[in-house]
């Protein structure tokens, strides 16, 4: 392991026609190539090629958006894994929980990870919102991105709430019953929305299937769609907005 062959293989791979057809620029050792890393990649081009140095400071954003998205990535990964061991039927759902605990390798670990990541995501989104408010980062041209943020918060809460029912234990059943009973109180729209959500008048097997599909497909798709627009607008508006400058300087006094 004297380190010589590995770099040579690296260079050989980098210069092959196949690699060049996938990653078209060379090693990221010049600023031009570092730009191309961002510019030529579908997933990284949500970033601009250059960012203001001050936006990298911890107190500029407290990285709260990044933390929330990290929790989301963990949730998607563990969520897909958990889906492979879960039937949205009664009483199979609860039995699957027990099986996850006693039969599946690391089942408990993945379930815990999913649960705590969900809490972190809700908390991260709330704190991110508070941060943006006190930094006044909702000001034009970012007004509508704040509204998208509110929508994202609501979708996140709905995701967490629909996921809460899936274990089909007493905690889940009564937690969701309490919540949907509140929805019933809304005038005119309340009862039909509740009926649509539960597929009936009580929390039953139909509700489990609906919450499952909402939790696993519909709401994640909505979340990712809005999140895309959210990040897209941050980039279009010149990157993250940190704390405002000294307040009195912002305006030209007569």
């Amino acid at each position, binding site marked *: 392991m004297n380190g010589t062959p590995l770099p040579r293989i690296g260079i050989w791979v980098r210069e092959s026609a196949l690699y060049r057809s996938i990653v078209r620029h060379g090693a990221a050792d010049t600023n031009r190539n570092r730009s191309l890393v961002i510019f030529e990649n579908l997933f990284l081009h949500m970033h601009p090629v*250059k960012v203001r140095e001050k936006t990298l400071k911890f107190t500029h954003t407290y990285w709260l958006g990044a933390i929330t998205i990290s929790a989301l990535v963990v949730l998607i990964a563990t969520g897909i894994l958990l889906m492979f061991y879960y039937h949205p039927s009664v009483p199979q759902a609860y039995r699957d929980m027990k099986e996850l605990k006693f039969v599946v390798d690391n089942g408990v670990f993945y379930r815990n990870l999913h649960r705590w990541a969900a809490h972190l995501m809700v908390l991260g989104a709330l704190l991110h919102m508070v941060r943006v408010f006190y930094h006044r980062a909702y000001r034009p041209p970012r*007004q509508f991105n704040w509204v998208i943020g509110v929508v994202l918060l609501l979708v996140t809460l709905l995701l967490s709430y629909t996921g809460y029912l899936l274990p089909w*234990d007493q905690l889940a059943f009564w937690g969701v019953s309490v919540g949907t009973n509140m929805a019933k109180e809304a005038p005119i729209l309340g009862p039909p929305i509740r009926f649509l959500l539960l597929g009936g008048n009580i929390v039953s097997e139909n509700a489990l299937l609906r919450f499952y599909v909402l939790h696993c497909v519909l709401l994640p798709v909505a979340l990712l769609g809005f999140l895309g627009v959210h990040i897209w607008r941050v980039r279009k508006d010149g990157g993250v907005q940190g704390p405002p400058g000294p307040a009195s300087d912002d305006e030209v006094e007569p």
Partner: protein
Amino acid sequence: MSSPMPPLDLIESNDPVAMPKRVALVRPDARATLRRVEERWVMTFPNLILREVIVFQIVVIALSLAALLFNAPLEGIANPLETPNPSKAPWYFLGLQELLHYFPPVVAGVVFPGLVVVALVVIPFAKINLSARPLWSGDKKQTRLWGGGAIVVLAVFFAAFNCWPIVIPTLLVGGAMFSIGGGGQGGRLRQFLVRVTMPEWIMTWFILVATILTLIGTFFRGPGWSLVWPWNMYPPA
């Protein structure tokens, strides 16, 4: 290529095509000030991406540790015939559930959350948020009248429903607001408070109320939604 290359010092000239300049129009009723904005830009690729990867790694490690140390709760199978006491919603709804204790369901479950969502959406379109003037920067008498009135109305309203977890933070925030009503002199805290805008006072009040309600609902409510100490609660939330 018949003509020779122009001299390189062309771009040092006053020629506006070669070297554009910015012009600012200063109206006679305004004061012209120059703020030097010296912003340094860095490449996204190593600088930002690396930090994002580090944040992601920290989150994954922290969550993994939490997942190893604490188990997600799992109780008996759902039984519609046997209601646990208390039956609680997820923690982020416990503030609302706590409100249910004081208000009729249609108010606690529909009016209040509806108002909160509308208030959040409206924030960036309200002019008062955009001007961002400190609360006490305008007419002090007016501010005292309207601010004091709002606090009294809120406190009386919530007190009428016996909702002390809201009344007390309302009075606290009101007290802090009026403590600097006189002027901007004083210690550091005072200087900080003087610059707080009205929307910031409101948001701070809201966050305080929401946190207190959620904490009470989570840790201090036992069977029959009675007040208990966290260590006496059954089942643990």
